[in-house]
């Protein structure tokens, strides 16, 4: 048995092959289907999730090796409101078919969590592992920049709150 924290809840995988990729454990055994199968060889990024906060390809991780680890999928990204990246994806009408977009969003959100104001080159580098056959890269980039703006603004706000720099 392997117990993994998925989107804040512990999930125990019983009686499945420990060599099963996390991708298929999530999809077939945990009811988490936002994560998508595209290639199975770590080339397309459609299966991107966060492992302990880092964007990883879930088709390349075996479930048996993840005891006690923390996995976040696109279903667990929103809190009370949508994550700024999700909101930007909707506002910028990024998706065409949409199949790759959960993976794109997880890569983009991971980038912005660490680097709230990335340069174009940094966005390119962070997103190069996620394929989109529909060709929405331009909109993805615009959405990341919009989310970056929103996250930077809110980070400034909360930092100021923390430092008690806000005037009443």
């Amino acid at each position, binding site marked *: 048995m392997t117990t993994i924290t998925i989107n804040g809840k512990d999930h125990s995988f019983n009686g499945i*092959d420990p060599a099963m990729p996390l991708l*298929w454990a999530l999809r077939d055994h945990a009811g988490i*289907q936002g994560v998508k199968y595209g290639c199975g060889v770590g080339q397309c990024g459609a299966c991107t999730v966060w492992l302990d906060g880092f964007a990883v390809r879930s088709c390349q991780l075996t479930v048996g090796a993840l005891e006690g680890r923390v996995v976040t999928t696109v279903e667990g990204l929103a809190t009370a409101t*949508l994550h700024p990246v999700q909101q930007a994806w909707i506002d910028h009408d990024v998706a065409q078919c949409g199949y790759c977009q959960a993976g794109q969003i997880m890569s983009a959100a991971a980038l912005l969590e660490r680097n709230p104001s990335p340069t174009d080159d940094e966005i390119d580098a962070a997103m190069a592992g996620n394929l989109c056959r529909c060709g929405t890269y*331009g909109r993805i980039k615009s959405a990341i920049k919009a989310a970056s703006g929103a996250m930077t603004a809110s980070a400034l706000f909360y930092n100021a709150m923390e430092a008690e720099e806000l005037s009443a």
Partner: protein
Amino acid sequence: MNQPSNSIANTDRRDFLKISLGLALSSTGSISMMSLASAEASGTLNAYVNINADGSVTIYGPNPEVGQGVNTSLPMIVAEELDAKWEDVQCEAAPVQQQYGMQFAGGSLSIPMRWDEMRKMGATAREMLCRAAASQWNVPRDELTTADSMVRHGPSGKSGHYKDLVAAASLISVPDEADVRLKAPADYRLLGKRISNASAEGIATGKPIFGIDAKVDAMVYASFVKCPSIGGVAKSANLEAVRALPGVIDAFILDGTPGPYNFDIRESHAIQSGVAIVGKDTWSTFKAREALKVDWDLSAASQDDSDSIEAEALAALATGRVEAEIERAGDVEAAFANAAMTADSTYSTDFVSHAQLEPQGVLVSAATSAVEVWTSSQTPVFITSNLAKLLDVTPGNITVHQLRGGGGFGRRLSNEYIFEAALISRRVGAPVKLQWKREDDMAFDYFRAPTYYQLQGAVTDDGQLVGWKNLVAAASTDGENANYGASYRPYDFPGKVIPNVVVEQSFVKSQTPTGAWRAPISNVYAFAEQSFIAELAHKAGQDHRAFLLNAIGDKGWIKEGDMASLNTARARATIEAVTKAAGWGRKLPEGHGLGLAFFLSHSGHIAEVAEVSVDGKDITVHDVWVAADVGQVVNLSGLENQLQGSVVDGLSTMAAQRISIKNGAVVQSNYDSYPLLRMPQSPRVHVDVLNSGYRPTGAGEPALPPLAPAVCNAVFDACGERIKALPISKEGFKIV
């Protein structure tokens, strides 16, 4: 400008439709639903419109959504005429039923095919709501106006929400078509605006809306292993050993049906032989494949070798081997004999895979005579009839649910994976989720056919293109008919524009299945034609833009009344717009080049300019400008997305995508050997939508064909090297 009152039938001559879908465009079916005036009050006004008690409005999109945006744009058309408040509209996929007519996605036809029907559905529902209000308030119908899901009576100040009128409206008889007025375009509130995809939030939050996400109780999982060489038959396999593997429920041979496995989406339910592995989850079936050993009978298997096909095709062109004539106009020999300048050039393109991100997969429950299918097929309309034959059940007992497809591009026009799943489900007596691996998807595609065109042009001393020859070498299974997408179809340009034209063809044997790939034929022929025109302009010492405009001429509509036909004014407008936007003729940075191309396909007049720089064999595509005329704009955001995406997809495909065949089997297996363009390589794309006011036509395909020639013309402008084969990686070039 005369705007033709084109009927839907006028659009059917193009692309795969003529070949595959001949029926039914004359009857989109659902109009008859409007007579359903019910005896019981309800929220339903017709097959597409339901006003809910909470004030929201459900509008059904009849055609499959595979990323082209039709489950947003078609409901928008209904909502426009209905005057529904868009924020309260829920777009839902219609069930697959005869009343919804031609439920398929292909040929960029959803919008043109449904335009009249969707408008009438919205307007009729609105008229019924108004009549109900007129009756309730005892006021004249003509004094009522509608907006934001409300009916208003100006003189009395009365107003009512649709939700409070629909019960009465649902009981009144359906108005005559003649009494239902459609809006003038100037009155549109919604059409032409940028509207986000109706499923945008579901996509961004990971809702299970795709074909791959379908689930039912007690379903089992399956993988289906076919012979790598197309048409090989499974004789025997180590089935006992596979059945004993963990998680495996069963393993057995499916005999399949005899080939050839042609792209016949209407009539065929042929499947190839193979071994089905059924398991308790997807991974168990994938893992069991590693232990599977199959003895294949290769006697009927393809022996194709793509290098040999290419060598034979190029030899046929070099020796002028002609076996059939496709098109002829004027006196071609005289035009060439009298020309001041002639040129010839041979262009070729390789097999290409669809490589849509969601591999084929489906859920089918066929254990009993009540059959149910959950699929992201592009042709749900053809599933029932073929499945009924395959399973020997009555069509009325088959229910098909359409789910969102993770990309289509023509791949999901064929339903063979559904038939595989149906046979497996019947055999195991349980609902079966069949999941193709990416490797299956790449090995058993209906590929874009390879093409080979030898073009010749004749130019007069005043720079006029007066003669055109095209010899096509077409892959052919039977040696007499070109395989799907392997040949040429007579286009208005050059055939109806250049005075002296001949198109001939020869055949090259190939058994590899081919099918419709985004903008069939156009996506390869445009590369040859528009590159060659740039060659002719260069050799004639003329500016490419001027030469192209001169060649297109100013005849206006080439076929009056046919929306699919070339309109030279629309063509010129896109070329003029795109060259203006790109700064045609400006001084470029060192090593940069600009390239132009125009193409008409799927009724879309599209011109593109690319700016590139070349360093050795490394090509950077900096910017691409697109000017597009697809008539009345429905959803501007969706349209711009298709134009932008077509540019990236076109660049992705021309860069290094190549399927090669050895011993009848596909060499490439996944995205590592068949690369898609990634974000760092993708250019800035600038789109300019020309809202010409003509009837709206589709946008899923026509912006792709001009991309490759625009880029290749820019490469020539930058460094003087003329690319004549796609993908460009064949000649050592790389998109960086």
